[in-house]
């Protein structure tokens, strides 16, 4: 019993939005569609909702083909990035609206609305109208309405993107708990990899209309199948350098050469792309095998307890994140250390050919 998508394709005016999507979402699962803007997240959610029909492919719910079912026939609710509520209805009526459509009894409606409002912390504003509420409250109303519909599939399209920072944090912590144990299939679109980590569900990495990898965020982060998944799961842009393997060494540019670490030994000679995350660059050597790389500071940003250092390494822009606040001047020449055990290697088609072993990662 699940929602199954088989080889779904969709293009609009010759532009491919979704390409060969095959997925399976189980009941009681929290699924995160993670990808950059215009990756196809919203297109896929609209397909699942039945708002757009696919060009080819099938969609099955509990084994029954629903591909040709329009939005009205599908049992889904949709929460948008913009807070969509009925502005002229009170919060109570907003939440009650899906139940009114189903002509539920008055007592059931009263009970359910109050339950949901309590759950979402909007019990005190039931008499007010959405435009007079804060963004966070408005989005809670929209979520409560989605829950009141009691649909089997709940779709959320970046529901927290328009909220203030601290509100986003609070609501993000509440969301998975709201849906837990209700038997729903939740699909949540996100661009921020931290959201995928914190929501702690099944992460579907999507880019340019294709699925790049599926799995828990932590395992995709540790062992990305390809360059696209590796960079989408990075909090800071992943650093990429052109590398060449010859004579069991890795050569980057004309200054940096180091012996191949264990997990790269099996690679044949040739050109590759070397990848490492911002947190893997450090000011001091962490292990004996750490490689020293010359770098020029472009600009530094302090985030409070951490410093983001933008560097020029081997004529490529790179990013490092270090703890504490460090005052580096722009243009300063410094040495950064890189642990070869934590490096990724990608081939020319962007497939991962070497991932660090778990113990080598910090």
């Amino acid at each position, binding site marked *: 019993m699940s929602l199954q998508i088989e080889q779904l394709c969709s293009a609009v005016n010759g532009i491919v939005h979704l390409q060969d999507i095959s997925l399976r979402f189980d009941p009681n699962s929290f699924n995160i569609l993670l990808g950059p803007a215009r990756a196809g997240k919203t297109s896929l959610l609209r397909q699942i909702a039945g708002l757009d029909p696919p060009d080819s492919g099938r969609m099955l719910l509990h084994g029954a083909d629903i591909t040709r079912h329009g939005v009205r026939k599908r049992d889904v609710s949709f929460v948008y990035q913009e807070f969509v509520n009925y502005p002229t209805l009170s919060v109570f009526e907003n939440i009650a609206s899906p139940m009114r459509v189903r002509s539920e009894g008055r007592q059931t409606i009263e009970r359910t609305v109050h339950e949901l409002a309590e759950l979402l912390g909007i019990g005190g504003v039931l008499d007010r109208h959405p435009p007079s509420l804060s963004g966070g409250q408005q989005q809670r109303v929209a979520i409560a309405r989605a829950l009141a519909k009691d649909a089997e599939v709940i779709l959320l399209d970046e529901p927290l993107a328009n909220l203030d920072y601290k509100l986003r944090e609070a609501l993000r912590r509440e969301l998975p708990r709201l849906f837990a144990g209700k038997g729903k299939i939740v699909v949540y679109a996100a661009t921020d990899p931290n959201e995928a980590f*914190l929501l*702690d569900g099944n992460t579907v990495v999507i880019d340019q209309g294709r699925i790049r990898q599926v799995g828990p965020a932590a395992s995709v982060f540790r062992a990305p199948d390809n360059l696209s998944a590796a960079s989408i799961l990075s909090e800071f842009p992943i650093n990429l350098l052109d590398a060449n393997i010859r004579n069991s060494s890795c050569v980057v540019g004309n200054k940096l050469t180091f012996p191949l670490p264990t997990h790269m030994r099996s690679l044949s000679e040739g050109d590759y792309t070397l990848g490492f995350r911002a947190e893997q660059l450090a000011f001091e050597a962490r292990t004996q095998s750490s490689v020293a790389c010359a770098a020029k500071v472009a600009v530094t940003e302090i985030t409070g*307890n951490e410093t983001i250092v933008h560097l020029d390494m081997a004529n490529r822009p790179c990013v490092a994140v270090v703890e504490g606040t460090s005052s580096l001047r*722009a243009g300063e020449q410094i040495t950064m250390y890189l642990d070869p055990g934590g490096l990724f290697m990608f081939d020319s088609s962007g497939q991962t050919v070497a991932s660090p072993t778990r113990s080598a990662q910090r």
Partner: protein
Amino acid sequence: MAQIETTGLSHSYQPQPGYPQDFVLKKLDLNLLDGHAYALLGPSGCGKSTLLRIISGLLQPTQGRIHFDGKDVTHLDARQRHVAEVFQFPVVYETMSVFDNLAFPLRNRGLDREAIAERVADVARLLDLTEQLTLKSAALSAGARQLVSLGRGLVRTDVNAILFDEPLTVIDPQEKWHLRTRLKQLHRQFALTMVYVTHDQTEALTFADTVMVMHNGRILQSGSPSELFERPEHTFVGRFIGSPGMNFLRCQFDGNAAIIGDQSIPLQKSYSADIDDHSCELGFRPESCTFSRDGSGIAAQLINVDCTSRRKIAYLDAAGSSICVSLPADQDIPADSHRIRIDPQRALLYSADRLVEESR
């Protein structure tokens, strides 16, 4: 670029404000130095956008004065104040090319054709827009539009300050990153006076030399990013800055140690002020506390654990409050009986929401 000073600046959107709560800005005295980058940080409704609109001259303050380089500009409008502003929603003149957009402020000021072409070419190079100069601006991405609207400020040589009103709100996360660094570099390169309004602490802390945290029409603290992080002067600042924010636990103070339940945390500092025990709180960052392995520390009950790519965040109940502990991702959380040890060097004492200063 200019130094901007405000004295006793108050503003109310009501025609006859009477009560203090009618005011969205409450008697602000600011001194923004020439060539510095400032961020106004606060939750929505704190008055930060109002303050920005008053600085730019789009809004007249109810009370108080505003000076640019010592000259009173309180009653000058936006045109006469020579400020540039980048708005939340990128404003480009859609029927014009990128070149014409950048040239627009100069043409309005009657510069000659050659001077305009030269200046526009310079700014386009600076913003990496040279290749897009001939494009219709309607065809640009949101990030590029925001660069163009910034460019319209940079081309002018008479600009006193560049103001930003949540400029990255509608920008894709990937573009956001580049635009943010670009701003920072421009500031370093040209010592521009910049004022940046945002609710996003990362944007504020990474962008500014000085961050001013606003709440309810007042500035609670103004300082460097690390000052705000290490020594918040108000519990609101502590909670607002940092993700997750600072932990606060009710405590009693006996002259040199904070007492929480049966635990005494020696603060190793001396305080001159009399401290009222009823409103005393110990503040510490989730990063400056750990799980103790030897049975000492404050007893706590683990609620749940969140993992990000780099850190583990444990949410706990301790001494009647909820607190967070942030650990590097490779550290494990003890399986049973949780006790928290607070680093006394980095713990701060608060009384009535204000930081208690140590005496030297």
